[in-house]
């Protein structure tokens, strides 16, 4: 089945005003922190990675109608059902009805601070020289990408300039689709906002962080 992302929103219109909120506001319902915690804890089992989580959320057909933590909940549920960890009848019943799978890892309370402090760095030793350097002009891949990607639609086919070189990083497109880490060089590429949209703000430049396979020399 073709992968369709409903989350690629840069430059789209008609979403209404921005509603600010005070710094101290964290959650808007009691269940939201539970979803955050379950997502982080299940992410710690090693059954999927962060890119698979993003792919599961962003391809939800109901994405645009759901609130943020509803998206997280449905994304988590989708991953768990796909892995046979829970079944719909269990969610209906509110209790376990089938046997449990043995998990590769489990996140225990005592380990949480260390696990969060360690994080999950994505930089890897480079095995090839970087194809591009700061100042190079590049053209971004045009057209559809048939799987999870971090190449936003709004830059596809556009020319930009390499502004930073970040080293080789785990390639999200491969990582999300079960093809392993496949590290590639990562660059910050800048665009004149008016080149992307004629009605964009004046005197504004926009950048994305792009892996090498997203671009070619312009």
């Amino acid at each position, binding site marked *: 089945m073709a992968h369709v992302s409903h989350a690629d929103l840069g430059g789209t219109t008609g979403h209404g005003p921005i509603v600010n909120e005070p710094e101290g506001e964290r959650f808007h319902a009691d269940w939201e*922190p539970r979803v955050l915690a379950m997502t982080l804890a299940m992410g710690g089992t090693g059954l999927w990675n962060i890119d698979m989580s993003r792919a599961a959320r962003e391809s939800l057909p109901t994405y645009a109608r759901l609130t943020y933590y509803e998206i997280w*909940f449905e994304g988590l549920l989708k991953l768990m059902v796909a892995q046979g960890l829970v079944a719909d009848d269990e969610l*209906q019943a509110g209790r376990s009805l089938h046997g449990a799978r043995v*998990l590769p890892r489990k996140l225990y309370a005592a380990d949480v601070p260390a696990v969060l402090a360690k994080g999950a760095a994505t930089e890897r030793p480079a095995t090839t020289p970087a194809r591009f350097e700061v100042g190079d002009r590049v053209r971004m891949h045009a057209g559809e990408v048939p799987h999870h990607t971090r190449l936003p639609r709004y830059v596809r086919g556009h020319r930009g300039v390499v502004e930073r070189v970040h080293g080789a*990083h785990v390639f999200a497109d491969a990582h999300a689709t079960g093809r392993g880490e496949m590290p590639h060089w990562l660059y910050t590429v800048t665009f004149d906002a008016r080149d992307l949209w004629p009605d964009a703000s004046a005197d504004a430049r926009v950048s994305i962080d792009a892996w090498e396979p997203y671009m070619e020399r312009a």
Partner: protein
Amino acid sequence: MSAGHHHDHDHSELSPMELRVRALETVLGEKGYVDPAALDVLIDTYQSKVGPRNGAHVVARAWSDPAYKQWLLRDGSAAIASLGFQGRQGEHMVVLENTPAQHHMVVCTLCSCYPWPVLGLPPTWYKSAPYRSRAVRDPRGVLAEFGVALPEGTSIRVWDSTAEVRYLVLPMRPDGTDGLDEDELAALVTRDSMIGTGLALTPPARAR
């Protein structure tokens, strides 16, 4: 509330979403997939420990110590970690210095990427379609909505966090703050000023 399904009285006030979340949490606990105490530690961490006061501390240090500021701009991850802030969603930090010539603003148009160790969890607007769609196309309009009008001649630089690099804006130090210590300076540093949708406060106003 779904029909044909009995809920005891305690649950009658709960929304369908609350019930689904409770159901999943119960199943995960019964199957032994999660340690219930781990969930509580995770929530406590992001509800009460990690938040934008961390980033404000980093900014105040940079305003007070030129050598630290140079380090922060050269190697954000290491300089920030030296103050005790590191890890998940802050593994690869880049700090962007606002100047009279250039104003930086950070967005994640694809999801909600945000530097958790220094800013905590993102506010709802940062994760929502209005900001994510317009920050890249109409940053001046977005800033106006946040009450920020940049002086003539200030260019805008928007950073879309499309990979695992996380960006923190170093706002300009306000005038009239010469005698302030780091704690007093940190109180002027708002969350929005470190995303680039706001400016640092001028004394005697204080961050919330």
